[in-house]
């Protein structure tokens, strides 16, 4: 049986890949998790034993083929195993966002009709229990961390250990059944269902087949030359397609090791301890890390600071060229070596990037300065462009062709086309099967020939073949005078400043652009501390005149930079307010992946937007907020409307 599985032909399902790894890489580490201060690890053969035990226990519990098994929790090996166990039972795993509120969960659990839930801890168990009356199909819950759950009514509650124990005890009886179910899995059976974060409307359940997952994992692993000895750190939400592909798809295909942090707060320490060779992070994480580095350098001794500034300037000059293998002079090379010894090496070590061979960022545009900072240190950071419906990969940057303003060339096996309105379409083996129980949306997104609309506007550079994304197709608009309005372009420029966490630019169909700005509490509070500025709350700090003046400087600098771009010079920000609260996914202002929900923000803060355009000097407002436990409260604030200097608009406009 193993003979056939070893050939590529036999590898037609996730469990089949797992079997191959347990034979071929039996003693190689497959999973690590830091627990009780120590990294615990499991080899591929141990992992298989654990996963089979759980799968057998699940069959014993009554999990049937075609059932949906929801998995909710932070990244832990046992939860990844739960997904694979579900697949072994012929069931479909549905990972959900662990920070979602109970009502959000009620929708997704109800929509797929999940009969079984694997919950990470008491918090997740509580949420599911709260909504279980709304879920007629719900049958049993399996929990991982027993803490605080001992007194709970165990009528519909089982511990993970108990299920595995049952599985091991009844192995003889059930193993034939399990193997029969695994054998039935083929390339077209469903591997997983993932809910999109839902920038608009309810989340949609994207059904991905084994073909989608395995083909994509195969081509992308080959594209980047991933190795069996690689290490990744799994810390992004399990419900996100990227995590599924990195920590399950590619991990199984290449057989590398998935490392899980001890807790979300220890992520940075764990990153340093593991030193991943293959690393993925959204731009926000890189931004935060850069902000932290800059803050710490501000506090460093003058000698250190001067050394840092000097060598970083050199790194910016030659670092990216060195990484791309372009010719660099001998003196520059020697100086870079010295810098590596004194600054870059220690800095990379502190960040946990010493061993990174392939690093990716995606999800949002990354500020060119941030991108170049990491590349100049010699970290092979690249961009990729993808979405859940494509099983991640649409385009990616090959080694040696990395630029901050494009998202790369089409991935192997992917076809791309741009329609007349500028929207990007693609077709690939990774194209999703369907939206679950939503044929209308499926038909809207995927046409009969298999082309899928991305919803993004962009163009392919004629000479290099690289794809450039301008903005979300529906967000790109026209100003009242007909010039192009691309809010994301301006927002990204604003967000590069460490003091600015989030920006939302308005102006579609209007004469002038205005903006909401969120300060970055880490950076601004550090600045306040160093300058002896006292504040009692986020709100007070955000309204401090000196903070407003600093932000105004940033906005004016961005205006100068925007004015240089002929097409987009109309997008300069004329007026702005610094918001009194941080935009938050709990209040529905951001998606769970922290993308701005423009519609929601426009509705919620309509009074402030009105004030931005009616010439008011300040605006008093009351904002509803949701606390982490779901309770609601309100914040009252009076915000000052600041006018920013704009550059005279380029000649093209005057000619019209």
């Amino acid at each position, binding site marked *: 049986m193993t003979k056939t599985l070893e050939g590529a032909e036999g590898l037609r399902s996730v469990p089949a890949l797992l079997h191959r790894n347990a034979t071929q890489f039996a003693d190689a580490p497959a999973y690590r998790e830091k627990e*009780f201060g120590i990294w615990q690890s499991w080899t591929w053969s141990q992992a298989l034993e654990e996963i089979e035990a759980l799968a057998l226990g699940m069959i014993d519990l009554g999990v049937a083929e075609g059932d949906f098994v929801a998995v909710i929790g932070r990244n832990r090996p046992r939860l990844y195993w739960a997904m694979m166990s579900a697949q072994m039972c012929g069931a479909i795993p549905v990972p959900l966002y662990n920070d979602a509120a109970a009502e959000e969960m009620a929708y997704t659990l109800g929509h797929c009709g999940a009969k079984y839930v694997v919950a990470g801890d008491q918090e997740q168990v509580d949420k599911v229990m709260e909504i279980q009356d709304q879920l007629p199909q719900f049958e049993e819950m399996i929990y991982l961390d027993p803490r605080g759950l001992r*007194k709970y009514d165990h009528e519909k509650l089982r511990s993970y250990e108990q299920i595995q124990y049952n599985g091991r005890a009844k192995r003889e009886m059930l193993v034939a059944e399990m193997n029969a179910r695994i054998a039935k899995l083929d390339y077209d059976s469903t591997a997983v269902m993932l809910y999109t974060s839902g920038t608009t409307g309810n989340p949609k359940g994207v059904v991905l087949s084994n073909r989608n997952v395995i083909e994509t994992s195969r081509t992308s692993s080959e594209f980047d030359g991933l190795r069996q000895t690689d290490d990744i750190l799994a810390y992004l939400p399990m419900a996100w397609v990227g995590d599924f592909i990195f920590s399950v798809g590619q991990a199984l295909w290449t057989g590398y090791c998935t490392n899980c942090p001890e807790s979300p707060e*220890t992520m940075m320490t764990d990153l340093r301890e593991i030193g991943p060779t293959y690393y993925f992070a959204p731009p926000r994480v890189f931004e935060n890390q850069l902000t932290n580095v800059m803050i710490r350098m501000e506090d460093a001794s003058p000698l250190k600071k001067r050394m840092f500034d000097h060598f970083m300037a050199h790194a910016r000059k030659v670092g990216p060229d060195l990484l791309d293998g372009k010719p660099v002079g001998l003196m520059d090379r020697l100086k870079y070596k010295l810098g590596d010894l004194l600054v870059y090496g220690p800095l990379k070590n502190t960040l946990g990037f010493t061993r990174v061979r392939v690093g990716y960022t995606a999800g949002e545009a990354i500020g060119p300065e941030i991108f170049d900072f990491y590349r100049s240190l010699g970290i092979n950071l690249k961009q990729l462009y993808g979405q859940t419906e494509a099983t991640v990969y649409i385009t990616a940057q090959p080694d040696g062709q990395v630029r901050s303003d494009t998202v790369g060339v089409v991935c192997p096996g992917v076809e791309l086309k741009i329609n007349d309105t500028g929207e990007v379409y693609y077709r690939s083996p990774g194209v999703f099967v369907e939206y679950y129980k939503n044929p209308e949306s499926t038909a809207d997104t995927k046409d009969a020939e298999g082309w899928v609309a991305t919803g993004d506007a962009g163009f392919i550079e004629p000479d290099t073949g690289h794809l450039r994304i301008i903005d979300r197709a529906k967000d790109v608009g026209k100003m009242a005078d007909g010039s192009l309005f691309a809010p994301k372009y301006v927002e990204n420029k604003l967000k590069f400043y460490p003091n600015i966490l989030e920006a939302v630019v308005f102006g579609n169909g209007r004469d002038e652009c205005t903006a909401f700005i969120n300060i970055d509490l880490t950076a601004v509070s550090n600045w306040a501390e160093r300058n002896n500025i006292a504040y009692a709350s986020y709100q007070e700090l955000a309204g401090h005149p000196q903070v407003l003046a600093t932000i105004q400087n940033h906005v004016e600098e961005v205006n100068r930079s925007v004015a240089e771009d002929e097409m987009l010079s109309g997008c300069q920000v004329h007026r702005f307010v610094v918001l009194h609260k941080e935009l938050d996914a709990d209040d529905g202002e951001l998606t769970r992946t922290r993308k701005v929900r423009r519609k929601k923000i426009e509705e919620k803060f309509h009074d402030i937007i009105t004030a931005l355009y009616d010439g008011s000097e300040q605006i008093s407002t009351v904002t509803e907020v949701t606390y982490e436990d779901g309770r609601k409260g309100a914040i009252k604030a009076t915000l000052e409307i600041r006018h920013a200097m704009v550059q005279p608009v380029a000649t093209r406009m005057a000619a019209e």
Partner: protein
Amino acid sequence: MLDQAEGYTTADGRRIGPVVMEMKNITLRFGGVEAIKDISFDIREGEIRAIIGPNGAGKSSMLNVISGFYVPQEGQVFYQGQPRPPMKPFQVARQGIARTFQNIALFEGMSVLDNVMTGRLTHMQTGLFWQSMWKGKAEQEETANREVAEKIIDFLEIQAIRKTPVARLPYGLKKRVELARALAAEPSLLLLDEPMAGMNVEEKEDMSRFILDVNDEFGTTIALIEHDMGVVMDLSDRVVVMDYGKKIGDGTPDEVRNNQDVIDAYLGVAHD
């Protein structure tokens, strides 16, 4: 129901055992000042017992009598059925009693982990010889103790600050570290002196959660002093109310809440 000697089961299914500590007619004087006047009450196994009262009511003195730090002039303390003689603090610790302090008393320059490890001191057997040899017995013991310390760190969710020097931590976290150190001793009776003093609402909620979890997971008997009435009423199984060194109420939170003397003490009535 409370007088059942063998204990009882609470409404939420927790098992409350027999009396483990009994105070009989305790009177404590500092010179001419009577800090505690003829107070008697008991603490049952597995319960959360609160001592409340306005400022200067004698709560901290009472806790110090329980912990054996003060020896009362009159009355007797019975621990696990035996009358307790005056003892040194380390003897008290060996009896399985651990405490936290109103004004945090941690080793500021040491890391969180090291502080928690000091709580294991009473469980270390190896002498100076083996400790200086390090290999062998002492190493095994250190490993075993570290395991316990790590379980506590995990339990109180302070993994992220494991290696951080205590001096750099905010107040609320220091309180949690102190609780961790007390728990590391694996006490059978845990004394908490104003565990939520100076905390904001969120920190109080966290701390309450941890206190309940400790009681639930480890079955630790907890006696606590607290100012915040709301917290006390939610947490405790039974409450002793003190005022001017006297006991003015004793019972379940509901009984205490409706006690006229307690209402007077808290709302302020002219004492004649």
